[in-house]
């Protein structure tokens, strides 16, 4: 009875089940990951050697822009929402998300938003080509006609994320099982709750920004047009007021994921649970007062540079607390190194490298040298790929037995991990060097002196891309014909989803709330 569910296409179209919607989010984000990854392959193929080989600069610009937009809004954010949908109700002992119908809607907006965005490739003037940050006046006065499709697309994905965030907040506040107090919640639920608050604070600001762009382009306003009394620098302020919290939106749920996985494979409780909660909240609060570190080079007064520099460096403190806690959790634990644990450890190490280059970029005087170079590209790919994407990958391996009732092949998972680990570093580490040597970002051609670094990065990128296709295949094999999973697949795992539910988790769970003590 509890496993009864509708069949056919309408199951997916009409579903209000958090597990179905979670799966659809995850599959959608993986498709977008491959689409955005294909664009990255075009970029890296062009940059394999100096000179122009495969694409024209105009098309190259469309590639960098769409790669960024697809990966941020199409791959990383929906994958985190997918994890939230699957896991939060099971972790807090709720039968479903609080607003299931809205949940269905917030997912089904996404395919339409991205069809709009991707259709711009077929339009006259091509796809948006102004970078994912769409600075005015590049995107207003000089944007291609398809910019309006981009604006509508961003509005739609913004609405989708806002609805997802409302759902998470209401679920966590009102649907916890009796006895599940706030400070007993798994850390993944905490990080997502904080992420959801960030989302409802800044996605409306993004919506406002693109609305201003729209009226500047078509309705005669001059928000960002100096000729009419506006100010293009103001665009950057408003955009980054959204943009900086946005980067924490992408990473905080991954923090939550590794905070579940590392204790499980260390066979110890998470070190410093409450300090983790407070550190996450402080990161979120600080993210609102550091936005101008993205624009040190616009000509700010020294006082402004100092403020944003120091505030930014302050973020290293709560982040350091988190890294310390993960390491301390592993300290003297009885560790085993299954695939989810490998990805989580790599997450801690490589995310920390990305954090360090972040501190370097936070220093206003040296940022003038690094600004808009490949050093920045190296920095944010180090926090996004081994950060957000390794986090999601670890989650997929860790909870796959619970979701599907089947285990992945451990050897196959280890191959996926080691290839990813080698190629991710081969791709992004050389970018630190080419960036420090002065190679600007978003260019299709470059000076001969950067040739070797770029060749290594391109080889790494092709390998990294193929490795993710391998991941897809091995996950499909696992779902179809993997070994049957046990109810508690990982001996060190904790939480309601492992202790109170069979594998695979039935279609309807916790119709009567579990007892938590």
């Amino acid at each position, binding site marked *: 009875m509890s496993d009864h569910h509708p069949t056919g296409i309408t199951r997916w179209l009409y579903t209000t089940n958090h597990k179905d919607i979670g799966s659809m989010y995850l599959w959608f984000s993986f498709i977008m990951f491959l689409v955005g990854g294909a664009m990255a392959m075009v970029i890296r193929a062009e940059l394999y050697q100096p000179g122009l080989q495969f694409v024209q600069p105009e098309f190259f610009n469309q590639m960098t822009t769409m790669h960024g937009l697809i990966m941020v809004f199409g791959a990383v954010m929906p994958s985190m929402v997918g994890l939230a949908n699957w896991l939060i109700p099971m972790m807090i002992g709720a039968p479903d998300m*609080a*607003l299931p119908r809205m949940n269905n809607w917030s997912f089904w907006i996404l395919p339409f938003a991205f069809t709009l965005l991707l259709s711009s490739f077929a339009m006259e003037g091509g796809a948006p080509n102004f970078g994912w940050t769409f600075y005015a006046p590049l995107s207003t006065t000089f944007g291609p006609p398809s910019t309006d499709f981009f604006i509508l697309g961003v509005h739609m994905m913004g609405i989708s994320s*806002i609805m997802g965030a*409302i759902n998470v*907040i*209401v679920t966590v*506040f*009102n*649907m916890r099982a009796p006895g599940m107090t706030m400070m007993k919640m798994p850390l993944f639920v905490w990080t997502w709750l904080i992420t959801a608050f960030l989302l*409802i*604070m*800044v*996605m*409306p*600001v993004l*919506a*406002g*920004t693109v609305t*201003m762009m729209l009226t500047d382009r078509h309705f*005669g306003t001059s*928000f960002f047009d*100096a*000729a*009419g*009394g506006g*100010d293009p*620098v*103001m665009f950057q*302020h*408003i955009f980054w*007021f959204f943009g900086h919290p946005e980067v924490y939106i992408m990473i905080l749920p991954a923090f939550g994921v590794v905070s579940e996985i590392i204790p499980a494979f260390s066979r110890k409780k998470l070190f410093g649970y409450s300090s983790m909660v407070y550190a996450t909240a402080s990161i979120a609060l600080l993210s609102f007062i550091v936005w101008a570190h993205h624009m040190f080079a616009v*000509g*700010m*007064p020294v006082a*402004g540079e100092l403020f944003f520099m120091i505030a930014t460096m302050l973020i290293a403190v709560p982040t350091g607390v988190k890294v310390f806690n993960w390491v301390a959790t592993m300290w003297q634990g009885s560790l085993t190194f299954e695939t989810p644990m490998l990805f989580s450890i790599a997450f801690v190490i490589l995310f920390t490298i990305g954090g360090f280059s972040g501190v370097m970029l936070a220093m206003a005087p040296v940022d003038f040298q690094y600004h808009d170079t490949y050093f920045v590209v190296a920095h944010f790919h180090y926090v996004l790929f081994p950060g957000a994407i390794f986090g999601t990958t670890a989650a997929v391996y860790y909870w796959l037995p619970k979701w599907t009732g089947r285990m992945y092949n451990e050897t196959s998972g280890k191959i996926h991990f080691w290839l990813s680990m080698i190629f991710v570093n081969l791709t992004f580490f050389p970018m630190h060097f080419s960036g420090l040597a002065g190679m600007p970002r978003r260019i299709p051609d470059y000076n001969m002196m950067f040739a070797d670094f770029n060749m290594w990065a391109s080889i790494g990128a092709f390998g990294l891309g193929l490795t993710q296709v391998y991941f897809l295949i091995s996950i499909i094999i696992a779902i179809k014909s993997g070994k049957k999973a046990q109810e508690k697949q990982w001996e060190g795992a904790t939480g309601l989803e492992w202790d109170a539910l069979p594998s695979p988790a039935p279609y309807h769970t916790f119709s009567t709330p579990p007892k938590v003590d």
Partner: protein
Amino acid sequence: MTEQLQQGENKKLIWRLVGIIGGMFLFAFALVPLYNVFCDITGINGKTRGQALYESVEVDSKRIVTVEFLTNINRGMPWEFKSMVKSIDVHPGELNEVRFYAKNRSKFDIVGQSIPSVSPGEAALYLNKTECFCFDQQRLAAGEEVEMPMKFYLDADIPEDITRLTLSYQLFNVTESVTTASVTNQ
């Protein structure tokens, strides 16, 4: 908790969250005037203020500040535009006049709008213009040329460390938006 009670709780929370979302959307637009007010008070983006009245104040004849003039032409603006002098040395407190020259080298009537900017930004707070072509738009017929006056004085309390400042004008072609506006007005 009964189902109905739960529904009521959910509704209350949803409306609060929707309130935050609406508030943040409006806040994005409120950032525009906030930004302008903030820059106006601190002068950090180098925007000069509107028309000032010259009050004869004590001229600090011991100090000399060099004021340089820069002119730039925006894309799609077929005018010649320059200041008649590159720079002048002024005493804080005294009223000065410089003249700018503009010529429409195209075959069409064009409306131009100059946007001033001061560097270093904080000097903008002490630069007062009593008369400036940038307060209005200029319509020049094809081939027409014009000399435009600009009168300004520096506040006597301009910080000691500012000995040199640059006043730059960016000239924009606003013919299209002016024409559209006048058509809509009719």
